[in-house]
């Protein structure tokens, strides 16, 4: 299980964290570069051309959210935010700005590697076919059909576009704001959070066997939701 050639840029001001990340990533075959500030990261990215960026939120000077917005102006390189629990609002801002996922410190290398694999795989899969399958759930994007096992599931148009957004960004953490934008467009509603949660609730009731232990639609408290795919651990994807 190695990832030959996959290039990861670590942006963190703590030398200890950089050292630990470099060691575990290199041990798994990634090639690693480091930056200790936001400014340095913005300089390094065009030259190093990383396949993935691990970005610490608590950087001095140019912060993680700003780095994300700057990078998103010209590149879709996946970004995983590294945050501590107190960064809640900054974390959401960075995700809204286009970061792909986050990890809360402290985390183990196993968790990190799984997250990196999921993110890079998702990027690689973006152009996969019109039929999405995970566990018992089948979503046929071309035929607008949703099946759970053999049974057809009836969804309202809103529920369907919500599910479609999840399928398109399978495994990606979608913030409340991103989901609202994707499903309801720019329209303004009285209480958008309420609207979103009611529809998620309905969708879960139709798709999940036990809504208290959801299998597909996972809540990230205070941040958003993600569609979790149940995939066999395959070899690492090559290239983004």
């Amino acid at each position, binding site marked *: 299980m190695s990832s030959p050639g996959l290039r990861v840029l670590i942006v963190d001001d703590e030398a200890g964290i950089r050292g630990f990340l470099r060691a575990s990533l290199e041990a798994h075959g990634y090639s690693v570069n480091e930056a200790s500030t936001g400014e340095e990261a913005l300089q390094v990215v065009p030259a190093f051309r990383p396949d993935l960026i691990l970005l610490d939120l608590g950087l001095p000077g140019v912060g993680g959210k700003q780095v994300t917005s700057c990078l998103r102006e010209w590149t879709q390189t996946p970004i995983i935010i590294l945050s501590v629990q107190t960064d809640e609002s900054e974390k959401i801002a960075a995700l809204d700005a286009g970061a792909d996922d986050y990890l809360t410190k402290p985390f183990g290398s196993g968790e990190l590697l799984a997250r990196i694999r999921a993110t890079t795989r998702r990027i690689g899969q973006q152009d996969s076919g019109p039929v999405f399958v995970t566990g018992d759930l089948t979503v046929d994007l071309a035929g607008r059909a949703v099946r759970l096992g053999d049974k057809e599931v009836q969804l309202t148009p809103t529920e369907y576009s919500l599910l479609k957004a999840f399928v398109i960004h399978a495994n990606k953490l979608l913030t409340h704001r991103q989901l609202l934008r994707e499903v309801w467009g720019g329209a303004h509603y009285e209480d958008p959070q309420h609207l979103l949660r009611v529809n*998620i609730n309905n969708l879960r009731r139709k798709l999940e066997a036990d809504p*208290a*232990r959801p299998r597909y639609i996972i809540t*990230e*408290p205070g941040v958003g939701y993600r569609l979790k795919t149940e995939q066999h651990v395959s070899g690492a994807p090559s290239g983004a």
Partner: protein
Amino acid sequence: MPDEVPSTAVPNLPTHVSTDEESSARSEFSWKDRVLQLGDASTDSWWRGVPTSLAIAGLITILGLWIEPVIRGPNLAIFYMLAVVFSAVRWGQWAVIINAISSAFLFDYFFVLPYRSFVIGDVWYLITLVGLLTVGLIVSALMVATREEARAARRREMRVSALYSFTQSLASGNEFDQILDAVARHCVEIFQRPIVVLLPAAEGLIVRFASAELVFDANENKTASWVFENGQEAGCGTASFSGSRIRYRPLKTGPDIVGVIGVQTKGSKDLLPPDQRELLGIFLDQTALALTRADLAKKAKRAEVLQEADKLHRALLNSVSHNLRTPLASVLGVLNTILEDASLLDVPTQQSLLKTAQGEAKQLDWLVQNLLDMTRIEGGAIRVKAEPCDVHDVVAAALRQLGESARSHAILVTIAPGLPLVPMDDVLMVQVLVNLLDNALKYSSADAPVEIRASLAAGQLEIGILDRGRGIPEGELERVFDKFYRVAVPGAPRGSGLGLSICKGFVEAHNGRILAKRRTEGGTEIAVFLPLEKRRE
């Protein structure tokens, strides 16, 4: 002296007599009043009693003429003598002199041979006349002195009783406002002048009391400040700031000046009489003492609060340092062992040591997180971002966050169908549920299921976490939510004593309630109640 208004003002003193002793003292004065004419001083002029004395002398003469056949003329002198003494006792010098002289002449004219003439035939009668006059004057002089003494005593009594009631009202309160109120009330009542009281504050001297009719402007403030800084009297009737209509006096206790009192004069020359000035001096001393006492009381209270806080800090420090150092010691121990003795240890041993270190480090991380949360709660930094949430969602997130321990232990989830979305901050509420579930799992045996129940109860969302653990003793059901409080159970799992108090802090930030109950068949239920309506802010 312009301010020499004799005793006239004194009888106007109000008397606050309440005790029995004092009322008897007063009645004693009443009979003296009647005899010594201490009452209304407005009749205290030189001719007082003169007409009456004349009339008495005339009356005795008529009486004498009537009884002369029985009592011989010269003996009648004794009646005149009585009248003179009476005048002396009752009135004053002038009444005595007039009485004595008129008596002498009347006696001589009617009862001394030769009758109906002022010629004195016998030298003995002359002696009688002189005696009459002398006795009268001596008695009257004595009486005047006695009367003065009685008046002075009465003045003293008035002053003492005024001071007594003043110090009593001062002693009744330890608060600045109570003291100021007493000072204002008594001073205005006794001295009949508008007054102003100024006390120092952070921004300088400020007016704490001023009579309604008193004019206090910036100039006056300057005068008062000068008094406060120099500790000397100023204003009306003094060398400094004599243009003011208010006379300022510093309130001193020893070398310290605790405030300034100003007494306004009525006219430009109307200052206080000397005895009242003396009384005011005593009042000021008492006031200064009372204010100092109030200040000290305040400081003592603050010191007590600080001490309390200090005690809490020490408890916190003890708990934190113990809870922080214990896991840290394990981590360091493992790391040192592996660094130094790696060659002596086989791989499985190293693995197991590292697992221990990992567990301890996790414990440390969890503790730090709890401490941070506690700090946020106590610092009022918890901002509840209440959004309508699905209870399923929150429970699911909590179970997922618990990870392995939630999967390996049976957890029954019962969520009433048709629950509405409830406004809450899901990040905080997930943490509450994680803390409660973590506790429940820690204290449950492996085969006893933990339950989560959610339902509507009396217009509120009720979430219960139920276990079959040891249960909390009856008397400690409330205290378990206290910071650092832990139920004393030998061999209990390690904990910081912060988990439940954090839950309480988070739930209360939602305007909710949390309480612990004993389950009848054993175990504990922690119930969380949340309002269904979003709080209006």
